[in-house]
């Protein structure tokens, strides 16, 4: 599928001036209303959170939280990744995820990237597997309002940590 004519896809950072764009996206993409902490993490993550623009229209986003561990190591947690329904299948999600993977690989103190996925969300699991993620843990009753309530932790190890494993 996809448009016959090539439309440009570009990424832009999230600042307090355009934070509302992210809020709008989240309000239609996810059944959750995110709290202030989420948006504070977003602003603190810098380059790790991006909005995706499809011919100048904001249509998707990836939002990460950087978790500091002992010894200066950092873990990247992907809080949300989503694209507006009409604009899916155009490679926008891939571009967003690749941006974060790329960024992480360039930073030597980042050892892993992980996220939570509902256990029945096969499309998502397959999507992440393509990028070298694997299921590392299952958490029972992670969700309170949806079925199944269980989730997987999906992780990709990079750099030295990968060697260790």
């Amino acid at each position: 599928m996809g448009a016959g004519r090539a439309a440009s896809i570009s990424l832009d950072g999230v600042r307090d001036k355009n934070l509302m764009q992210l809020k709008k996206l989240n309000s239609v993409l996810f059944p959750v209303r995110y709290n202030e902490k989420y948006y504070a993490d977003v602003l603190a993550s810098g380059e790790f959170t991006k909005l995706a623009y499809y011919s100048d229209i904001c249509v998707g986003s990836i939002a990460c939280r950087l978790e500091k561990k002992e010894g200066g190591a950092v873990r990247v947690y992907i809080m949300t990744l989503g694209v507006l329904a009409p604009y899916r299948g155009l490679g926008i999600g891939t571009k967003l995820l690749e941006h974060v993977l790329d960024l992480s690989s360039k930073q030597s103190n980042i050892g892993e990237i992980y996220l939570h996925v509902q256990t029945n969300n096969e499309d998502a699991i397959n999507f992440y597997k393509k990028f070298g993620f694997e299921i590392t843990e299952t958490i029972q009753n992670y969700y309170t309002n949806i079925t199944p309530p269980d989730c997987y932790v999906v992780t990709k190890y990079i750099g030295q940590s990968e060697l260790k494993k």
Partner: protein
Amino acid sequence: MGAPLPPKEANLFKLIVKSYETKQYKKGLKAADAILKKFPDHGETLSMRGLTLNCMDRKPEAYELVRLGLKNDLKSHVCWHVYGLLYRSDREYREAIKCYRNALRIDPDNIEILRDLSLLQAQMRDLAGFVETRQQLLSLKPSHRMNWIGFAVSQHLNSNASKAIDILEAYEGTLEEDYPPDNERCEHGEMLLYKISLLEECGLLEKAILELHKKESKIVDKLSYKEVEASLLVKLNRLHGGEKLYRVLLSMNPDNYRYYEGLQKCVGLYSQNGQYSSDEIDQLDSLYKSLGQQYTWSSAVKRIPLDFLEDVKFQNAADNYIRPLLTKGVPSLFSDLSPLYDHPSKADILEKLLLDLEESIKTTGGYPGRSDKEPPSTLMWTLFYLAQHYDRRGLYDVALAKIDEALQHTPTVIDLYSVKSKILKHGGDFTAAAEMADEARCMDLADRYVNSQCVKRMLQADQVPLAEKTAVLFTKDGDQHNNLHDMQCMWYELACGESYFRQGDLGRALKKFLAVEKHYADITEDQFDFHSYCLRKMTLRSYIEMLRFQDRLHAQDYFRKAAVGAIKCYIKLYDSPSKSSTEEEDELAKLPASQKKKLRQKQRKAEARAKKEAEVKSEEANVGGVSKPGKRQVKPVDPDPHGEKLLQTEDPLMEAGKYLKLLQKHSSDFLETHLLSFEVNMRKKKILLALQALKQLQRLDPGNPDAHRSLLKFFHKVASMPAPATDGEKLISEVVEAERPTFSHLLGKSLMEANTVFLEQHKDSLLHRAAVAEMIYCLGQNKGDAVKLIEESPNNVVYSNGSHGSVREWKLKDCVAVHKILGTVFNDNDAATRWKIRCAEYFPYSTYFEGQRSSTHASKKDSKQTHPENGSIESHPSNAKIENTKALKDLAI
């Protein structure tokens, strides 16, 4: 002149002058004091000391000293010159001119004074005087280029263009063959182009084009050269040459509409009103088709044919025009096409076209007849266009449905929110429109435009404090009032003034309207520097254009709105003067004691706060003044920030008269000017001036309901006046009697008969019926009949769109006006209520009539609270636990 000073003091005096010119004011003062120690009465020194103090912000002292100096030495041209300079610095140009004239009487050949005088004369448009002064300057110093040019320009301004040409030719005669030198080529070229424009103005077209060709090598501005040549060729009817030249110009800039117009003129396919025969349309069509092949990147060449094409050809052209723009995503597409909506048939075609596109994209993913898919955004832009289309046609329901569909498709496009806000505004729901505009604003806090639009909507919804807070986000120092005023932000001041007026706060409203008037005075003032600058820089064509623009300045829309607003305020103020303090006391006395106390406390607090603010401000002003003496004048604090003093005016009608005069001079073709003139002069009991206003109304639009109302009111009023007693009164009544037959409405009819005839002529129009009804009541007939006349007005369907509903004739604005008439003129609350219920049906979004879908309607208010706008699950223990569920289901690639 007074006795000459001894050499030492004479040198000191020279030092004062020099210090003044080099802005070393302290040094100048010292020197002046040294002279005055010995010669305390020396007039010229006193004057110069005053002038120096004027530059140091010590105005009152300055005036005192300059006047004293003049008194001590009336025969000194220096003293008069200084006095003139002082007035000039205060923009009192008339007084300044008088002083200069006195100075010149003593020293007729003083070049400096003559030059200063000429600037003032140009500024005040004392054109005869300007010519005279310029001539004198030229004869005193013919070696100076500027004096030749100045004399020529003065003749031109004084409507003597041919004289100006002679002068410029004489000037050219003084030049060497190899003139100009390299560093003056631009100036000289400008002078030549100016001269050619003068020739054109005098109708000497042949001579103009000869001159143009002759001087080609000396004209630097090649583009202007070609444009002037092309326009001359058209005027000379040398169309073949013109066509060739316009094609050259188009190859340089294929998006200049004037070039296309010129080309059309040359090939005999141009009509002012855009009406063409079918044969001409065919020719135009093929002309633009061939141009379109040449200039594939031009948008003008694609857009212009939509204006003249019709029917199927229009449909095809529009289709070709619209598709790529929807694909690309051009938010301004609708405003680009909106002029086409003046032709209902084109609007119908566009509607069908867009609906077909929508249908096709929804079913096949691409445009009709195309196999390739459109990008997902095309559907959103199509819906966006359709929303604006239905908004324009008055079908607000459909428009909102379309925009909501677009919002559901892509909720991140700011333009969608802006357009939704606009639709709500048109529907009459100002509150919801402001809310929606605020939502648009929040989506890009760095965008001044959406911020401004939001401010405007808030003001339309009479949320002034909120609007001020929002506007301040984009002003630099956070002190928004002065800042917006300094930026001459007139749309803001007008919208603010109108909101205050609606809310009955006449003081604040006047403050805003007069601020706009002040901007126009400033703009007039701003031309002053250009009188010398443009002559020096030789930008003569722009200079003349600027002067002509200034002459028409007060005809501008913003000024008119401000003046109308101010006059309305003053009329209202006259009709119900502001409460005096004793009346306020009386009202206070009526309140229960507890409330009284509260109110008093509130007042006291407010007063204290205001006082404190003023103090802080003036302190700041003082600090600024000390640290930067003379450099940047710190503005004094506005002593009347809320316009309370404006309300204290003794004679509001006289104040109104000032602005009325400007409207009469510059906007005499606007009905409203004369309606206001009528209202003001009736209140002033200036019968003849009111009559004059009526005659203007008659000239502009005798069928206008307000003109009719004014006419009948006038003659009714005149008839009820006591018999004329004085000669003057007799004369007036004779004039009125003699003029009455000139109003064809009234010829041979009583006022009641005239009223009936008027009704017959316009019986389908709501506003006309309302005017007639008001006059029935006013002429003492049955009030019930009058109200019935309004209530029986038909609201016909003017445009029907099948299943999409229909649009009726009545406009929201008119219905609001009628509601007010029923309430205030007839004092018939029952009728007003009936009217409101009826209009709420017609205008479901109107907050004024509390329509069912408006935000003032009771049911709407409740439902809002139960549906929070964002998200359905309110909160979750840990953030971001459910993610990537829905979104990623379709994301597998």
